[in-house]
Structures are given as C-alpha cells and as structure tokens.
C-alpha cells in the first residue's frame, strides 16, 4: 500500500526517472523564456557557454557548486531520517558567526591553515546549534520541524541584522558587515587544480572549501550507509514504527540528525566568507539553503547524485549571470524559477511519469524477458 508503483531496475530508478523529471522542468522553463519573447535555445547556449566556456567561468561554476554541495548534503541527511529541514538558510547564516569569530580572532597572527580548521569547527557548531532547537522541539515537544525551521530562518535573519548592524560592525563604518579579514582569514584558491586541465582560474573564487565539500560528501556516504547511526536513521525514515519496535531511540536520532544537518549547512558559510568576500556581509547566504532542497531532491539524497546536481545548479547560477548579460529580459530570477520547477518535478511530482515508464518496462519486459531480468 505504501508503494503502489511497480519496481523498476536501478538504472531507471536512479537515472531515467530523475532525468525525465529534469528535462520536463527545463522544458517548462523554456516555455517561460518563450513567453518573455526570447529564444530558449539561444538562452541555453549562453548558459552553457557562460558556465563552462572559460577557465574562469568553470571556476565560478565550481565555486557556486561548493556552496550547494554543503546545503544539498544538509537537506539530504535530514531526508534520510524522514525529516525535512527547510532551515538550511538560517543555519548557514548563523554558521557564518562561527567563521567570522575564528577569522576576526586569529586572522592577523595565524596562517590560513590554522584559522581554517577553527572556522570549520565554528561554522559547524553554530549551524548545529541553530538546528538543535527545532530538532529538540520535534523530538521532545512534538512540534513539526518544517514549521519551526521556517520560523528559525526568520529569527536568524533578524538576529544577524542586529549583530551585523550593532555588534560585529567595526566602529565608524556604515556598511552592515565585519571588517575585511587579513591573510589568515583568506582561503587559497584551487588554481593548481584547474591548471592540471590547462585552465586558468582567473578571478574566480574557487577555493579549498571545494575539497572540504567533497570530503563532507564522502563523510555523509559513510555516515548513512556504513554506520550504525546511519542504519537507524534510514530505518526511522522508512518506517518509524519499525524503528521504535527495534528499540531505536527516536528522540536521540532526531536531535543528532538535525544537528548534523545544521552543521553541514553551517559549513556552507566558509565558502563565501573566507573564500570570496573575506568578510561577513548581510545576507551572504543568498538563498543557497533553499537551493539545497532542489539539489537534494535531484540528487535523490545520495552524495553521488548531490555533487552533479550541485554542479548543475552552479552552472545555472554562473551561466544565468551570463544570460542576464546577453539577454537583458532574462534576469537571474530565471534561476529561481528553474529551481522551483526542479523542486516541483523532481520532488513533489516525482511519480508523475513513473506509471508510464513502468508500463513501458512491462511491455518491454514481456517481449525481452532475459534483458529485463538482467536489468532488474
């Protein structure tokens, strides 16, 4: 009853269906482009060229992708335990405090490789702290984590405006931001990584936090599929009653999962703060927490899916800027639409094409039983 759909071979489940959903999302986005009176194919060309046409563009694409890997992983970890953490935006924002504190404290005296680990711990701790309360409230007081995390996003935003305009702002400055960090608060670029492929990173802020993101992706894979906690999380996500019956402590898992999720979202703050702007600005997250939802849905909550999905969204962000430059009527808000469409088709409507594809497999399978068996 819980799964009224026929079982499909793995490649269709994890490859074909997400691909079909993604294509439909982009077709609808193309319709919007048509509605605005531009040529969607030309827009697609500008986007791909703008995202991959030059070493610098690729650097920017991967810079954005870094951010989205963190937030995507954050949403995915919670998904596995059946929790929907919409609070990535606020957790990343608060995570910025951890990064800023580490940098403001040590950037003048210590090299980056001393400040970086501290900033990692700080950002994860602050992000986890901001997710702890919603998690605890869900576990102990039964308030829904979706609603509380939405509320916490707004509370975080107010809190950060307060901190940046009154507390963290240097004396005499008008702009709501911290002072610019010295060398210790600036992450080195990964120009050597791109130069292996003969590409010049140029001005792109592609930095070491990308490697941290890959590490985090591996860590999430280990956590979910190779540890006891991960097993408990997945059990709870599939059938909470079975988890309870098996004696797993639901409350404890919920709180821990939310804190891990918040910590991953908090890590996102490293990339823009230490990697690009070298200061904490108002609203530096810029919706990346919400992009994480789309990335996690598209990547089917698996790190191996999240990384390409994050790169795709990095492409949208970087290429979208290029489209806006070439076609003034298509501003970067187009990305927001695409993001929404991806969430709709890869998330809420993920089963729309499943019956048709299932039927296709049924007919195909009857005609070629051997191939179908091998496929399954």
């Amino acid at each position, binding site marked *: 009853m819980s799964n009224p759909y026929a079982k499909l071979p793995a490649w269709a489940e994890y490859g074909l269906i997400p691909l079909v959903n993604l294509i439909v999302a982009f077709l609808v986005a193309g319709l919007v482009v048509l509605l605005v009176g531009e040529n969607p194919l030309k827009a697609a060309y500008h986007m791909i060229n703008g995202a991959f046409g030059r070493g610098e563009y690729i650097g920017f694409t991967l810079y954005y992708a870094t951010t989205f890997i963190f937030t995507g992983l954050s949403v995915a970890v919670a998904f596995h335990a059946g929790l929907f953490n919409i609070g990535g935006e606020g957790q990343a924002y608060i995570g910025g405090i951890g990064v800023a504190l580490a940098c403001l404290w040590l950037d003048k005296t210590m090299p980056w490789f001393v400040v970086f680990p501290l900033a990692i711990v700080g950002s994860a701790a602050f992000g986890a702290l901001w997710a702890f309360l919603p998690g605890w409230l869900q576990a102990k007081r039964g308030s829904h984590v979706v609603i509380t995390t939405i509320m*916490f996003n707004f509370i975080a935003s107010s809190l950060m405006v307060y901190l940046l305009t009154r507390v963290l702002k240097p004396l005499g400055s008008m702009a709501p931001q911290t002072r610019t960090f010295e060398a210790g608060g600036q992450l080195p670029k990964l120009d050597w990584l791109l130069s292996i492929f003969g590409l010049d990173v140029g001005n792109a802020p592609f930095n070491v936090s990308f490697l941290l993101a890959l590490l985090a992706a591996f860590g999430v894979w280990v956590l979910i599929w190779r540890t006891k906690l991960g097993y408990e999380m997945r059990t709870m996500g599939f059938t909470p009653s079975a988890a309870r019956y098996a004696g797993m402590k639901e409350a404890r898992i919920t709180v821990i999962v939310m804190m891990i999720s918040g910590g991953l979202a908090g890590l996102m703050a490293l990339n823009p703060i230490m990697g690009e702007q070298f200061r904490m600005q108002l609203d530096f997250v810029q919706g990346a927490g919400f992009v994480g939802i789309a990335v996690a849905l598209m990547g089917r909550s698996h790190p191996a899916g999240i990384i390409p999905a994050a790169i795709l969204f990095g492409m949208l962000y970087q290429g979208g800027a290029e489209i806006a430059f070439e076609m003034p009527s298509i501003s970067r808000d187009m990305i927001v639409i695409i993001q929404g469409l991806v969430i709709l088709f890869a998330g809420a409507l993920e089963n729309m094409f499943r019956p048709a594809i299932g039927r296709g497999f049924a007919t195909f399978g009857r005609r070629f039983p051997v191939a179908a068996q091998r496929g399954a």
Partner: protein
Amino acid sequence: MEFFHTIVAILESTIRVSVPLIFAALAGLFTERAGVFDIGLEGKMLGAAFAAGAVAAVTGSVLMGLLAAILISVLLSLVHGYASITQRGSQIVSGVAINFIVAGSTVILGEAWFRQGGRTPALDADARFQTVTFPFADAVKDVPIFGPIYSNLLSGHFILTYVAFLLVPFSWWVLYRTRFGLRLRAVGENPGAVDTAGISVIWLRYRAVICCGILCGFAGAYLSLAMSAGFVKGMTAGKGYIALAALIFAKWRPFNIMMACLLFGFLDALAIRLQGNPLPFIGQVPVQLMQALPYILTVILLAGFIGKAVPPKAGGVPYVKER
C-alpha cells in the same frame, strides 16, 4: 489625549497590516483542515498580487484585477492539489516549489511586460480599491473618544478590509455549521472514515484547495490594489509565512486566527512606530526583535509552553485508498 491619538493611530495601522494576514491564514485554514498542508501561501499571495496589479494596470478595472488575482491563485492551488492529492507527492515540497516558481516568474514576466524593474505601472484611483467612509464619519470626528474611534478606526478602510473581517464568522459558519465543513474537517482527521461513508476524499480535498486559492487571491489583490497602487517585486515579504504562523498560533480556529493576525499585525505596527523611540521603563527595543517576535511566539507556542497546537491528524499525509 496625545497618548490616545497615538493608540488609535497604531490600532488603525494594525488593522491595515493584518488584513492580508487574515485572508491568507483563513486560506490556510481551509486546506489544512482538509489535511493538505500548505506552505505555499506566500507564493500564491505573491502571484495573486502580481496578477491583480498587471491586469488592473492594463484594463483599468479593479474588478478585473481582483478576478485575475483569484484566477491565478486558484490555478496555483490546483498545481499544489494535483501534486499533493492526485500524485501523492510531498505537500511541503510542492509548497516550496510554488513559492520559488512564483517569486521568479513575477519578476521575469513583470520586467518583460512592463519594463519597470519588476513593478507593474502605478495604478490610477479608478483601478484600485477606494476607502469606504461611514455615514457621519466627518461629523463626529471631533467628539472626544468616540469620534476618533468611529471615524479613524472603524471607518475609512478599504472594502476588502471589511470583507476580511466578515469572512472570519463566515468561515466559522462554513466549517462548523455546514455539511461541507463537517466533511472537510473529517477528511483532515480521518479520511478513511469519509471514504467509507461514500464521499470522495480527492474531490473534497480539491474543493478545500480551491477555497484556499480564492482567499489567497483576495490577500494578493489587497496588497497590490488596496494597500499600494500596483505590484512591487517580492511585495509579500514573508507575510505568507507570518499567516502560516498565525494559523498555527490560532490552533486552526477561525476566531483565534483573527486575534492572532491582529496580534502579529499589532507587533508590526508597533515596530514601525517604535523605530527610534525608546519605550518607557524598557528603553530602546531593537527593531529586529520586534520583527522576529511573531516567529518566536509561534515557536514557543509550538513547543507547548502556551497551550498545545495540535494539527489536523491526517495533515500532510496523502490519501491512498486501500487496495
């Protein structure tokens, strides 16, 4: 007397800012009571505000604007309904998607059609709602106490304001005193029982979702045709989420919703008033704290420290007929 006038002024703006909250929270009441959670109130309101602003600007008719707002909002509701009722997708995910699609497309389409940086053209007086003046409002203006209350607080609002407040008892009547309302509440608590009684759960939930669309249409039209003269990009500015908070704060009950919306509206009006003015005894209250207060209060309520907010039992769960 000075103090009294300040109070009246604050209450007046409280009413003004709480109207869209009331519309949107009542909209949420209908779907959530039917078991379809909706965090897409924000998006529907924004889409409706845009449709109202755009159509009123082109046709010059406030009525056409209102109709367009309702139409767009209902269409968006049907998308949400299709995803979460027919396709049994996640209601939360669908709501999030709608919020993003609307946030992006209002700007893109507004810029493409009107080229005013995501705004719709400023509306003439004919193309927006007019304020209603009660009889003798001018005559009694100078009567102490009663005068300001009658002529400033009660009179002189938009027609939609009165509609919003009348909708509160009307929604109560629909939900608690009609057959439709009984079934709607039942489908949110125990859809299996409703199905057993031979009533279509799907169709009932669709009707609830359409009710939500209509009310969100009013909310959006109020924003762009009454409160301001035209659509401005992102003009809902989180009101949909505040309405959602109010809905929960009110424990999914119509009269509580009105009170919660007025409370949150009052906090908003007070925050504007207090900017730069220290409070007696307490001193300067940061504006940010005032802005965050509705959310903080909702979290405290949800935590069960001020009574307990129990959502409809079948909320968020797509209905699958036993097979």
